[in-house]
């Protein structure tokens, strides 16, 4: 299975991910993509921007383990994960998860599981700019529930 895991300040392209998955992983019939973007409000406050940090080395390894787990559960042709770090503005892309598989159900499930794990099990930290200053964001309890549901 082809895999590419990147943590970078730069933006990404979905079209390029589509081309890469097709080129690297044969002619898979189903490709699922998820993109998370910076919202302009959160918990009833206006968000002016987001600052993202990671734990170099450890975060990459965790993403690798998450992709391993997806590859163990489903027949996948390729997985691409790109996670941005640094300063981002509302509307900016944060994360891309792209999965190709022969069957679309597997592409959907793997893409969603990777996202759910990434929300709770990867060492990223997010600082939001709000009118009063800034605040660090914790993962929501709903995210914990979603991630745990895959283990059931």
């Amino acid at each position, binding site marked *: 299975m082809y895999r590419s895991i990147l943590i970078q300040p730069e933006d990404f392209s979905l079209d390029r991910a589509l081309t890469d998955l097709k080129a690297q992983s044969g002619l898979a019939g189903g490709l699922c993509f998820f993109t*998370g973007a910076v919202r302009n409000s959160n918990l009833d406050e206006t968000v002016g921007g987001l600052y993202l*940090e990671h*734990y170099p*080395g*450890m975060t990459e*390894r*965790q993403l690798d383990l998450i992709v391993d787990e997806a590859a163990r559960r489903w027949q996948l042709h390729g997985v691409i994960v790109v*996670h941005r770090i640094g300063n981002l503005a509302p509307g900016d892309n*944060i*994360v891309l998860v792209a999965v190709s598989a022969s069957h679309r159900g597997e592409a959907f499930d793997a893409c969603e599981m990777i*996202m759910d794990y*990434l*929300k*709770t*099990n*990867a*060492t*990223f*930290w*997010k600082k939001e700019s709000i009118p009063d200053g800034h605040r*660090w*964001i*914790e*993962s929501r309890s709903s*995210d914990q529930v979603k991630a745990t549901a895959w283990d059931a």
Partner: protein
Amino acid sequence: MGQSDIEIMLEAPTTVGALKSMIKLPNGASLSEASLTQTIMAAVDQEMVDDSAMVSVTSEVAFFPPVTGG
């Protein structure tokens, strides 16, 4: 995350929990005291662990607040 790197010389292997009580925050409280009111996660050699995990004399240990990606 507002915390800098520190080096602690261990004479013998210990646990993450014991290490937490050795580290003082700027306000004078130890990390183990702080962890009563807030979530403090730990990694040893870049692997997520709990307080019972062993720390060797050459370990890289990290303490950090809750994580959220995506």
